[in-house]
């Protein structure tokens, strides 16, 4: 077909067909513009139009950085996310290390548990912890019966509870992300280290951990942004009654109070900036991790 009919101007026909081919991009582009770019632009514009004055400027941002509730929300979001990410990564590092050293059967069972439980988050997770540690939770009753104050007086519906829940959903994710990195650690390194009279502490802190550092930091940033944006878990636990960035943002657009797009959008921009910073850090480290592996 291509040889006979379009022989007169094959170059032209190919070019026309090429332009026609670009039409395949149109549906995708329309949906992405309508539901990804325009909503983002809307948030950005709303955040820059002052709530009181109606004039463009940083009024909304000045307001959120001077209002105690919003300051508290940003601060709570950052420290809860950071704490859960750090605890998550420490547990995950040890778990991945032990799983990597284990027999195939043990590793298989453990990875299956990780995969299954990594889905257990959001509203179901919050409910499960209410059954476990709520006001009449199973562990709370045990704590009261046996006199364990930590369990009996545990405050699930506050920062304590949020930290416990966030750590819970970080562990499977972190371990699944870190496990592959351990395959980059060569058996010979340990042998070489032992021959050179390195202690086990030297081996772990001077060889293994520095080598895994890009993966560890990359995973840490994924965990941090994962916790930062988590909404369902927190909402199911404390509703809007806690100073947390995602809860405060959503309550400005939905719920009993009047819609306040200006403040909500400004808070959303703060969240976006935190997330973008995380993604950039993650990209930086995953690139370095890939490079490091090539050299080895």
């Amino acid at each position: 077909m291509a040889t006979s009919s379009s022989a007169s101007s094959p170059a032209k026909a190919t070019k026309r067909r090429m332009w026609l081919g670009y039409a395949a991009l149109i549906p995708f582009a329309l949906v992405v513009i309508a539901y990804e770019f325009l909503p983002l632009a809307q948030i950005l514009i709303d955040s820059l139009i002052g709530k009181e004055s109606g004039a463009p400027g940083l009024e909304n941002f000045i307001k959120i950085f001077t209002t105690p509730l919003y300051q508290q929300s940003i601060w709570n979001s950052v420290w809860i996310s950071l704490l859960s990410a750090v605890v998550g990564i420490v547990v995950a590092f040890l778990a991945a290390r032990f799983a990597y050293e284990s027999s195939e059967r043990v590793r298989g069972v453990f990875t299956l548990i990780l995969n299954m439980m990594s889905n257990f988050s959001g509203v179901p997770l919050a409910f499960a912890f209410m059954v476990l540690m709520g006001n009449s939770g199973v562990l709370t009753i045990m704590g009261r019966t046996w006199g364990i104050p930590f369990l009996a007086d545990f405050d699930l519906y506050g920062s304590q509870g949020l930290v416990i829940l966030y750590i819970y959903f970080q562990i499977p994710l972190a371990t699944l992300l870190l496990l592959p990195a351990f395959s980059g650690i060569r058996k010979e390194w340990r042998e070489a280290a032992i021959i050179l009279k390195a202690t086990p502490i030297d081996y772990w802190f001077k060889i293994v951990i520095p080598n895994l550092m890009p993966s560890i930091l990359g995973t840490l940033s994924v965990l941090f942004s994962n916790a930062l944006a988590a909404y369902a878990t927190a909402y199911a636990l404390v509703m809007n009654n806690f100073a947390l960035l995602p809860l405060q943002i959503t309550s400005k657009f939905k719920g009993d109070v009047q819609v306040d797009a200006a403040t909500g959008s400004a808070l959303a921009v703060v969240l976006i900036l935190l997330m973008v910073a995380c993604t950039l850090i993650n990209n930086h480290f995953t690139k370095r991790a890939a490079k490091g592996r090539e050299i080895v």
Partner: protein
Amino acid sequence: MSAHSKSAPRGKKTSLGAKIFLAVVGLYLLVPFAVTFIYSLFVEWTDILPSGFTLRNYIELFSNATFWASIGRTLVLCLVSVVITIALLLLAMYVVVAINRKLGNVMQFVCMIPYALQGVILSIGIISLYTGTGTVLSNRMVMLFGAYTILVLPYIYQGIRNALNAIDAEMLIQAAEMLGCSRFRAYVQVVLPNIVSGILVSSLLAQSIVFGDFVLANNIAGTNYQNIQVFLQANMDKSSGLSSAIVVIIFLVVGAVTALVLKLQSSARKTEKE
């Protein structure tokens, strides 16, 4: 501990310390679900041990029409939004594979943005943009489908891209073109049949993400169009027995999908090795 593992040949035998640590982590992860499961099977649990075995919660749940309606809605949302995303991306990736490779980077960037944004930002952006515009776009259902399409973009994109790379789609198209087939026909008749199994895994993964979504459904549709997660949240304060049964059902459904994904992935890996 480290002295112990030093002497043990790696990858053969599991040391005791490793076993204990992994068991503790595994238990920590399993206990909340296990307790909820037991809770759902008993009349009450106000002492150390639960009392009065019963299937009442499940019978009540399965005879609840609202439950089935919310399950139905969730499944429609999962299927339709994932199918839309796959169709959009397959068309768009034709351009990347057959016409202009340079667009690949742009596509990747656009498809990865939702991964960084996640639900809260996406949902409030969409509601503040379209609510009250009085057009078809302000319909909550339309908004919700649009939002899910964007939410699953990163997962479907990665699945399709990996599948296209694995079969070297560009070379296949060039070969078909040399044999007198048009590029688009080559893409549809040669490339697509070869990547179906690759797309399957990522679409299952995407469906389990839509199934587990609460943020978008709650913020955009809310009580107007309850999905299963919103249904659970609405019941949490009313009946803890019923809610525990919903949690178990959600977990079993998502667990089954995950098991299927893992099985497909491992069998794909095996054929790759062969």
